[in-house]
């Protein structure tokens, strides 16, 4: 861990409005190479707004966003990608009917030949997709099968492997474990740790503190579009994190209400 290096992505006092609705306000955090910054919050906390700003889907209205210390405005996903910021969305940005290898290289296809004969290098892409996935521990019999036939965890890993292979320096993961069972979520968490080992800066968005704590180095907590704080792991225990998440007091009150209704 290099806490003093220039952050790959740094946001300061960042905010976003949709019409009159404030979706995000005054949020500050940073993610460095070889670190995992977890963004935690309940539904509607502003997690997806923050992701969309970092991914270049929406531009921010307030505050600053810096990539490698240089202030930037990311106008499109393409622009974010050109800065090495890759986003793996909850819906994984895969096209279910397309073969695994075509999905792996979608938008960044490798070609050979020039001019009118410029064509997809299918052999290279099939081979590379297979070996990159094998390196991540996914052994596919056939990279020509439609990606829709893979399991949720496998698809998640294909999406992460794709971003890593395509030269991402910063990886933004949107709820990668949300729709998965315990075992598959564990597999995905292992890939997050692996990505960190490869010196990537990872932004891991989740609402589950038990998934975030084991892999996270920093924790940004959001509620209703505002920051509840940005903590280093040393300053926060899992117990405190869980307590801050989703309002423990509210949960206790809910528990009381439910038990009262029992006969």
């Amino acid at each position, binding site marked *: 861990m290099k806490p003093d290096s220039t952050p790959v992505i740094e946001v300061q006092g960042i905010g976003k409005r949709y019409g009159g609705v404030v979706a995000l306000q005054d949020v500050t955090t940073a993610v460095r190479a070889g670190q995992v910054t977890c963004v935690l919050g309940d539904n509607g906390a502003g997690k997806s707004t923050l992701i969309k700003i970092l991914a270049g889907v929406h531009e921010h209205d307030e505050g600053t966003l810096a990539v490698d210390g240089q202030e930037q405005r990311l106008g499109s996903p393409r622009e974010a990608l050109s800065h090495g910021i890759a986003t793996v969305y909850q819906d994984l940005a895969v096209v279910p009917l397309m073969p695994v290898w075509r999905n792996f290289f979608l*938008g960044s296809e490798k070609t050979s030949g020039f001019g009118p004969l410029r064509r*997809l290098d299918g052999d290279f892409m099939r081979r590379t997709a297979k070996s990159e996935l094998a390196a991540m521990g996914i052994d596919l019999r056939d990279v020509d099968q439609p990606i829709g036939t893979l399991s949720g965890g496998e698809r998640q890993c294909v999406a992460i492997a794709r971003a890593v292979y395509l030269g991402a320096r910063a990886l933004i993961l949107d709820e990668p474990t949300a729709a998965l069972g315990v075992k598959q979520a564990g597999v995905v968490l292992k890939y997050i740790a692996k990505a960190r080992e490869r010196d990537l800066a990872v932004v891991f968005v989740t609402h589950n503190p038990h998934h975030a704590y084991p892999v996270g180095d920093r924790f940004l907590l959001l509620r209703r579009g505002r920051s509840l704080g940005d903590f280093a792991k040393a300053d926060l225990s899992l117990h405190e994190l869980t307590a801050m998440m989703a309002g423990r007091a509210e949960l206790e009150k809910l528990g009381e209400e439910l038990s009262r209704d029992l006969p």
Partner: protein
Amino acid sequence: MVTAILRRPEIGAAVAALAVFAFFTVYTDQFVSELGVSTWLNSSSRLGIMAVAVALLMVGGEFDLSTGVMTGTTGLIVAVTTTHYGLNIWVAAAVSLAAALAIGAANGIVVVRTGLPSFIVTLGTYFVLQGLNLALVKAIIGGVSVQGMRDVPYYDSIQPVFGGSFTLLGYEFGASVLWWIGFTALATWVLLRTRPGNWIFAVGGAEQSARQVGVPVFRTKVGLFMTTAGAGWLVGMILLFESSSATSERGVGQEFIFIICAVVGGCLLTGGYGSAIGAALGALIYGMANQGIVYAQWDNNWLQTFLGAMLLAAVLLNNWVRRRAEVAR
């Protein structure tokens, strides 16, 4: 190897085309005669060029209902500007192509920018063009049919390109058959072997996902609408120079036949899946059945019944294929 073949979208159409061919070959005498073959190949070729372009667009997740009237509009532009205004015929053909591409681009820009269903947007274009074909042409030349194309200077220099014919192994083919084969080969190459082809599958299969990984959705879709319009121009030129006349009613009602050919060829109505060769085979099936029914001396209306049955069978087959591909094993 066998699964690789069975996984191709056009496999159903290939089997059906063989069956239709075999049936009429056995059942009628004229079907494989020199005249028979050239008749059904020529009629298949015009449908086929459009069906292939429509298939690309459908793989890209959109429809175009203005394709049929576009074949009329482009022919009328050439016919009216040459016979009435004395424009050079080659220039007129170029102007007509430019107009077609502009209309296609307008279709595409409106669809992508507004997010409205292309079905509605191009239905609007369809009526606008149909009205123009009739009213504007009537206002300019006082009728809805343009004759006298043969007297236009340089007519003989351009006519063989689109309306010519050639003889091979004793069979006479129209130039349209070459255009059809060439266009199908080109479309297949683009779809399966190039980056834009990859993008076409992606924007049709999951537009949001495609955008997220950096696929230029706007360019891809507008390009597809321009391709169908450009194909409409090509077929418009073929019809114009084969008959050396243009009429305002030409092409009306054909747009659904193109879509049917594409679906029979394996295209999903929901986009993201299909093939150019399949659409060409779909057009071939239609052309063969159309002519075969005549040779069999059946009531011509059976064609509609046959077409409907083919369409239903194809949709059911495609649906099954998609569910198999999308659901995890």
